[in-house]
């Protein structure tokens, strides 16, 4: 309410005219007032924050101390007011504070602005000194410019003029003014510096009314610019403004060159020299025309303004929307600045919202540049302004002037996300100050449209349909984050950048421009409607692919991969345009995971002849007519499956070959197969070579076998019947690294584990060890029955290490006649009671130990069951989760980390990018999933941030939760989120350095968050994971074309980092024995195992047993690592065991103690030292014939 009232006052004040032109120094100081005013009310502590960038940290602490002193006594009615208000106007208090802080952080440095203002003043004076030129003909002009001592070229746009029947001339600009975000004071700090736009208006006298036709105005401007540049070079030197001048296109618009001015430090600096190199600012001198110079009606988007010879018979020329908009835009630099400025004045939070919008777009790779979506700060501000003046279907206001910055931002995002400005309708507004008449109109133009009735410009003219669809999707993603009431989503919305093409798209395909051979199709008509060859090709590719991929892709982004940035003033245009060697067309696909891998593309029914013919002509040879089970006869395309190439890539290759350029598929660059081929392939793919490696059907035979066995177990005649069999094995939830293959006994995960529960009974012994023995008795009974009555074979194995101190656990192993293995352990209703009782009875000293024992029990017998249940649902919902997590496991394996992380922990980390994908979307390809996992890992500061996952089965993101079913949905609620967060908080309070629990991963299955990290991961290993993911990501993201050598390196362990590395070589090979397809063997030499050996252990990998023994004997002194799957290594017979000495044990001398627990040697002063040499000797002796070499630091 308060805000609303203030708005009206503000409107009155805003009428005071403003002049944002440069030389008016006072405008800036006046400018800062409203800002401070706003901040004052928000936060009493902001006055001293401008300079804390340069301060040392010590100073900062001092400041914060001061700050808290200042704020404490002010806990007043005002504070209460703010606290209440922000909870309403913003999402929550914290969100508002975060936004405030961010806006402050982004503010340009005061000192830099002051310096640049001086520069601008001087530049202004210099421009005024440039003398008027004579009237030149084209040849005279060219001669004049090229004869000048600086050897400049005139930046004529294509086509280069040959003879002109009008004169070119320079005259002092009518107006020089500051435009763009710097002029609007919405500039933000940017990594590679901020560019300041200065607009010069060419005098009206230089033009004729018809100059908008046939590039005339543009040629005149080109001369104007080069003449100006020529003088500027001389004059800036004379006036102590050392700068470098080059040409650049304004936002990639090839019709609109401008001067790019940047500072440099000359060899000998004069006292008066103004150098602003350090500020990283650059100045862009744009030359515009006077507002209203041409009749804007003639330049409507559907008009033709370039007359060329037309091939069509009726002589009708196509419209030239890009050309028209470029000319009109050149007349409106000042005009729109004033318009935006007035609106900014009238809405308090306009500036902050514009800053937020600018950052939001920037983090997602959008800008006003043609190749970067054509939607940047200016377009965002214009849209926001239009929405302040209406925007609804009846012209109702979408945004109000009293809105907070958050509300303005969210409203604009929501509008972008929900209103279709392309096909269904468009937004029309009028840029006359004070006129409120934005209306959403039905029936769009099939191009993104935000139409200004006053200037006749479509503000979104630089956007393409493809970039618009992407923007809409991003807005929609962000809207969902903004609607999230459970978690604080500030970081993914504003802080995290999601601009790397490898990360943001599911599949990235690059077409080399040089091989497209499309020049002959780029005739004069295309030239005037698309302006550039790249635009033409992009649009064509987008059209083809949209049709070909249809439902398989949600959005298709097609852009040129390069930005013609500045170029030398000695050239007419950027020089490399003739040879296109390093230029690519980048196709980024956002895929629909449920559709994209389908093997059939269905077309119209056979009876629908007209459409059928279209279909056939589009798909060429591939089109055929097929009959389906439902009786329909349809036109279809059948895509032959490939084990590693995704169907989408196959289709893209085919259709581009057919419709774009023959054999372009040979030159096309894509990464998809490079990643999928790293997923281990099963030996069964020999017989069935077309089965895609990522298909879930690879797990089906195992599941069938499991179900058969379960039926048998459930029907066994036992004193207590088997009540339930709960699977906990990765292969039974499609996440095992190695695919299940019959008789592959050397696979360490060959026996798939389950938990067996019997009917409840009161008669279980009331003591743990006796209970364990009773369970064994039951297993013995099952063992007997299985061996006697069925074709299955079984045996019992002791499990001494799973539950420490409980060495009586036994596990029943069963091998099935069809070649699979399963193992079962028993859980009774007494177990947990007894463990808990043990904790209760334990003494103070014992308590911590017994609690750990209990947690080990919970992990194995209960947590894993819940985990399996949750994950197996998610695996079905996210088709790409299974292959992605398998690739991720492969990476961990290759980096010797498999032994340190349980499957459950790995899967929880991997599922993060699926259930909580922000700032990206749910991965729909293996490579995007894998890269985003690594990207998440390298950004996850696990010491300070918990990972809290919503593993709900309910995926509907409904905003309203009113009906009864929604209320009992298992989605994360604020309360559970808070309680998990508090768990984390108290955990870190006790253990701030994360010595005990490194990865806190909370979910409804494990609110404690530490179940899978406790006692398993260690601090050095957790840090290593982070370091490795950082290194890998930085290597992988360097280029959009992933180098296979680099990829191989990322999947190779760095043995140098360890204290010792023992290389092992087994006599037998374990590739085929583990069910893996050998890579370097002739196919006819590979033997697939078809039966079980007498003793399964005789064929198992000895390295695993060796590693286990070492692990249990030296765990307190050495962190040991090894490959879990010897079969994945070269020839399937080499492995390595590496060790890192625990520095707390091995580095220092210790006092003599009997129970020190590790191998020692005595020192001269009767102390003990870790005996490395003896330990190493022991290890090597134990390893015996397995050892092939030892490297010891």
């Amino acid at each position, binding site marked *: 309410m308060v805000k609303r009232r203030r708005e009206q006052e503000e409107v009155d004040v805003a009428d005071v005219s403003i002049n944002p032109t440069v030389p008016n120094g006072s405008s800036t100081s006046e400018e800062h007032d409203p800002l401070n005013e706003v901040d004052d009310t928000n936060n009493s502590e902001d006055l001293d924050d401008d300079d804390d960038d340069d301060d040392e940290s010590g100073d900062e602490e001092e400041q914060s101390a001061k700050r808290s002193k200042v704020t404490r006594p002010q806990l007043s009615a005002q504070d*209460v007011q703010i606290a209440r208000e922000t909870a309403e106007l913003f999402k929550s208090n914290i969100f508002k504070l975060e936004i405030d802080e961010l806006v402050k952080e982004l503010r340009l440095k005061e000192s830099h602005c002051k310096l640049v203002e001086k520069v601008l003043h001087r530049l202004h004076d210099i421009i005024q000194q440039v003398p008027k030129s004579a009237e030149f003909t084209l040849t005279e002009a060219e001669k004049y410019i090229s004869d000048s001592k600086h050897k400049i070229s005139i930046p004529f746009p294509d086509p280069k003029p040959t003879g002109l029947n009008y004169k070119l001339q320079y005259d002092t600009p009518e107006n020089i003014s500051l435009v763009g975000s710097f002029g609007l004071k919405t500039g933000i700090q940017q990594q590679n510096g901020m560019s300041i736009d200065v607009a010069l208006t060419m005098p009206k006298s230089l033009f004729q009314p018809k100059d908008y036709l046939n590039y005339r105005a543009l040629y005149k401007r080109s001369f104007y610019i080069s003449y100006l540049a020529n003088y500027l070079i001389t004059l800036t030197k004379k006036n102590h403004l050392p700068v470098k001048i080059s040409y650049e296109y304004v936002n990639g618009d090839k019709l609109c060159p401008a001067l790019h001015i940047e500072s440099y430090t000359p060899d000998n600096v004069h006292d008066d020299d103004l150098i602003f190199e350090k500020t990283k600012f650059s100045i862009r001198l744009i030359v515009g025309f006077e507002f209203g110079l041409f009749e804007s009606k003639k330049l409507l988007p559907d008009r033709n303004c370039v007359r060329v010879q037309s091939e069509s018979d009726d002589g009708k020329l196509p419209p030239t929307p890009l050309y028209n908009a470029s000319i009109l835009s050149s007349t409106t630099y000042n005009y729109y600045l004033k318009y935006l400025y007035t609106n900014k004045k009238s809405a308090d939070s306009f500036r902050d919202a514009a800053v937020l919008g600018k950052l939001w777009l920037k983090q997602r790779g959008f800008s006003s540049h043609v190749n970067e979506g054509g939607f940047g700060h200016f377009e965002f501000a214009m849209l926001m302004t239009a929405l302040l003046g209406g925007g609804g279907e009846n012209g109702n206001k979408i945004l109000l002037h009293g809105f907070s910055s958050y509300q303005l931002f969210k409203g604009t995002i929501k509008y972008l996300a929900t209103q279709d400005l392309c096909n269904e309708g468009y937004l029309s507004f009028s840029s006359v100050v004070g006129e409120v008449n934005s209306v959403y109109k039905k029936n769009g133009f099939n191009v993104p449209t935000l139409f200004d009735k006053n200037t006749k410009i479509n503000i979104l003219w630089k956007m393409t349909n493809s970039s618009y669809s992407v923007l809409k999707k991003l807005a929609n993603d962000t809207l969902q984050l903004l609607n999230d009431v459970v978690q604080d989503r500030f970081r993914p919305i504003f802080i995290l950048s999601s601009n790397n093409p490898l990360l943001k798209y599911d599949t990235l395909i690059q077409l080399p421009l040089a091989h497209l051979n499309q020049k002959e199709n780029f005739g004069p008509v295309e030239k005037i409607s698309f302006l550039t060859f790249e635009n033409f090709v992009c649009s064509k590719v987008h059209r083809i692919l949209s049709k070909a991929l249809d439902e398989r892709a949600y959005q298709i982004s097609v852009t040129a991969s390069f930005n013609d940035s500045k170029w030398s003033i000695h050239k007419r245009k950027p020089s490399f345009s003739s040879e296109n060697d390093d230029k690519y067309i980048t196709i980024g696909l956002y895929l629909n995971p449920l559709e994209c891998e389908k093997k059939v593309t269905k077309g119209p029914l056979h009876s629908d002849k007209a459409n059928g013919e279209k279909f056939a002509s589009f798909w060429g040879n591939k089109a055929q007519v097929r009959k389906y089970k439902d009786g329909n006869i349809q036109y279809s395309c059948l895509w032959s499956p490939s084990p590693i190439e995704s169907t989408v890539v196959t289709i893209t290759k085919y259709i581009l070959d057919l419709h774009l350029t023959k054999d372009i598929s040979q030159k096309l660059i894509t990464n998809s197969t490079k990643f999928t081929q790293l997923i281990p392939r099963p030996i069964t793919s020999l017989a069935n070579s077309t089965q895609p490696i990522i298909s879930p059907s690879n797990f089906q035979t195992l599941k069938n076998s499991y179900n058969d066995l379960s039926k048998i177990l459930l029907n066994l005649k036992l004193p207590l019947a088997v009540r339930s069999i709960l699977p906990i094995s990765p292969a039974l939830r499609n996440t095992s690294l190695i695919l299940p293959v019959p008789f592959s006994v050397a696979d360490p995960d060959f026996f798939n584990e389950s938990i067996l529960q019997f009917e409840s009974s009161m008669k279980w012994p009331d*003591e743990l060890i006796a209970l364990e023995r009773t369970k064994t008795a039951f297993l013995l009974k099952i063992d007997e029955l299985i061996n006697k009555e069925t074709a299955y074979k079984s045996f019992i194995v002791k499990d001494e290490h799973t539950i420490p101190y409980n060495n009586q656990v036994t596990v029943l192993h069963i091998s099935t006649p069809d070649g699979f293995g399963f193992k079962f352990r028993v859980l009774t209703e007494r177990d947990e009671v007894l463990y808990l009782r043990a904790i209760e009875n334990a003494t103070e000293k014992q308590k911590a130990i017994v609690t750990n024992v209990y947690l080990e029990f919970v992990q194995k017998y209960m947590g894993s069951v819940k985990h399996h249940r949750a994950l197996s649902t998610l695996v079905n919902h996210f088709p790409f989760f299974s292959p992605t997590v398998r690739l991720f496991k492969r990476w961990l394996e290759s980096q010797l980390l498999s032994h340190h992380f349980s499957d459950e922990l790995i899967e929880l980390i991997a599922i993060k990018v699926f259930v909580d994908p922000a700032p990206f979307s749910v991965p729909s390809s293996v490579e995007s999933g894998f890269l985003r996992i690594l990207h998440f890992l390298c950004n996850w500061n696990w010491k300070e941030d918990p990972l809290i996952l919503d593993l709900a089965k309910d995926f509907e993101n409904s905003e309203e939760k009113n009906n009864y079913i929604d209320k009992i949905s298992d989605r994360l609620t604020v309360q559970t989120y808070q309680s998990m967060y508090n768990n984390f908080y108290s955990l870190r309070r006790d253990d701030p350095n994360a010595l005990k629990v490194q990865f806190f991963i909370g979910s409804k299955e494990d609110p404690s968050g530490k179940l899978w990290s406790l006692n398993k991961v260690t601090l050095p290993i957790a840090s290593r994971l982070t370091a490795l993911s950082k290194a890998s990501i930085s290597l992988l993201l360097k280029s959009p074309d992933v180098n296979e050598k680099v990829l191989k390196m990322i999947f190779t362990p760095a043995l140098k980092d360890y204290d010792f590395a023992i290389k092992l070589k087994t006599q037998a090979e374990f590739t085929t024995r583990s069910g893996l397809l050998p890579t370097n063997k002739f196919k006819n030499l590979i033997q697939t195992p078809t039966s079980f050996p007498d003793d399964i252990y005789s064929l198992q990998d*000895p390295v695993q047993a060796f590693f286990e023994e070492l692990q249990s004997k030296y765990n307190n002194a050495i962190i040991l690592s090894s490959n879990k799957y010897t079969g994945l290594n070269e020839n399937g017979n080499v492995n390595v065991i590496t060790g890192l000495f625990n520095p707390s044990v091995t580095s220092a001398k210790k006092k003599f103690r009997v129970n020190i627990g590790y191998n020692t040697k005595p020192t*001269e002063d009767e102390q003990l030292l870790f005996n490395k040499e003896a330990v190493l000797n022991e290890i090597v002796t134990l390893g015996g014939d397995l050892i092939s*070499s030892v490297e010891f630091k």
Partner: protein
Amino acid sequence: MAVTSIQQIKGYTVLPVQLEPSKHVQKSYHYLYLKKHVIKNQPESQTRSLFLVNLPINSNFATIKKLFSDVAIGCIIESFESTQYEDPKSVINYDVEVDLSRLTNEELVPTEDTSNQRIPVGCGIVTFLDRSGLNLALTSIKKLVSSNNIKYPSWRISEDEATGTVRFTKSKKLNSEALSEEVSKSLQEFQQRELAAKEDLSTIKSLVDEDGFTLVVGSHRKTKNGILGSSKKAIDLEKNEAALKKMKKKEKQDFYRFQIRERKKLEMNELLNKFKEDQERVRVMKEKRRFRPY
């Protein structure tokens, strides 16, 4: 690698044991610290045992016997006990005794003689057949250690214990019959103990105390602790929660004006506190440079 010159450490004799070199590693030495095993109630002169510290890998009766026969011919070893480190999960703490069996149900645990002290981790006790054997061993070790230019005994993981592939592809299958026998034996023992405990219980039941009361026990109760424990808990509960809950229920929360005022104040304060907390959080985040988008 040189052998250390130290012969004694804190009263223990240091016995270097040679670890044989192989293709991949040099010869190195392991150090055993040993002295006579002394326990309470038994003077030093009577002991037949030697206390070994820092046992090498795979110490068992056979390997220790071999070692002593190398050092001192003629001493006969009767037994060898040890505690060796074996903890792949770093959960076990060897300094604290944890017996899950005892912790879950003390009554049903076999009453072993607890006087038998636990051996610390990495240590072992060798008992000789007679005291002269012990003395012989100890003197020859001391002699060996103090003399120059000697050959130290060497440590073999032992001939019968295989290494490498053979060792690590051994079958882990348990023999069903043996296991079944073992299980039934231990369960029988357990049942006996259970029976004994039950009898214990029935004696309590039939016991009439001085006031003429007997303890009433439900048919499902199995143990003494169960009964006594539960009756104890019941008392606690009554005292604490039920009574308090009742009291609270009777009070009205919004009857007096001051209550309403108080509540509003509380709410306001909560809001403010949360606000302050958030401010603090943002300040911390700022210090950590969490607001840098690039």
